[in-house]
């Protein structure tokens, strides 16, 4: 039989055999997982996950509530920040005012007098 079609046709549908079919069936059956015990395990796991999820949600809600509450308290008491630019023993405003006044009065004042005035204010 050297015909290729004949070779392929003879092979068609033919099945190889399993040496010990009963033994092989037993082997397969022994490898089967227990469906009942498998279904219980994830259920137990999911209960724990559900509990943790509830606790975490409650904690998150509490934290958000606390955050909003503390922000509202801060808003009721306005914060006023005052910066003191005055240096002790020296009033910058007065000095300039004096210079300005002198210039305004057009007083006949020379450089030495102005310098003296400056020293007096310090």
């Amino acid at each position: 039989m050297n015909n290729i079609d004949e070779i392929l046709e003879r092979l068609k549908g033919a099945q190889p055999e399993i040496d010990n079919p009963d033994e092989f069936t037993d082997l397969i059956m022994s490898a089967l997982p227990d469906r009942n015990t498998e279904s219980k395990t994830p259920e137990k796991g999911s209960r724990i996950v559900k509990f943790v999820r509830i606790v975490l949600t409650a904690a998150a809600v509490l934290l958000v509530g606390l955050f909003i509450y503390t922000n509202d308290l801060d808003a009721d008491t306005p914060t006023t920040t005052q910066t003191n630019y005055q240096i002790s023993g020296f009033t910058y405003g007065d000095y300039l005012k004096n210079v300005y006044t002198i210039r305004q009065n057009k007083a006949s004042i020379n450089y030495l007098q102005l310098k003296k005035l400056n020293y007096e204010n310090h």
Partner: protein
Amino acid sequence: MEQLEKDILIKCREGDKEAFRLVVRQYQRMVFSLALKMLCDEEEAKDTVQDTFIRVWQNIGEYDTAKSFVTWIYTIATRLCLDRIKAKKHTAAMPEDVDALARFAADTDSQVNLENSEWVAIVRLLASRLSDKQKTVFTLCQLEGLDTDEVQRITGLDTTQIKSNLYVARQTIRKQLTELGYE
């Protein structure tokens, strides 16, 4: 599907292992045949048969009874075989495979009585130059003798793809056998 088979499958869904034993006994040779021809390795084929029935057992609740149970098992087995083929290196033909084919060709007995090792040798030689897809279609259509519709449902390929893959597979095998002196 026969009523008896339906009853057995209902029992299997309820977790009856003795009912499932009947299913295994009924279909193990069919799955083994496919796996041996696809994988060309007896031990791997047996492992695949085991994996197939474990999958069937685990997912029998999802099986649609309106569809063919055989097709469903074939689908699972084919996918598992393809996973194994992808995982392992390409199996090249051995020199002794040519002798095994010569012995088979010389045998005039109409009944095919091949040892598993001979099956492995012949299929390994025939399919050594085929791609995974061609090998799958060739095994299902030509070696297992399934019709195109069934192969379509198993592989998810359309009719044109099946026919073209089968044509290319046959041509490749024909060329290879011609080189070996067959006509």
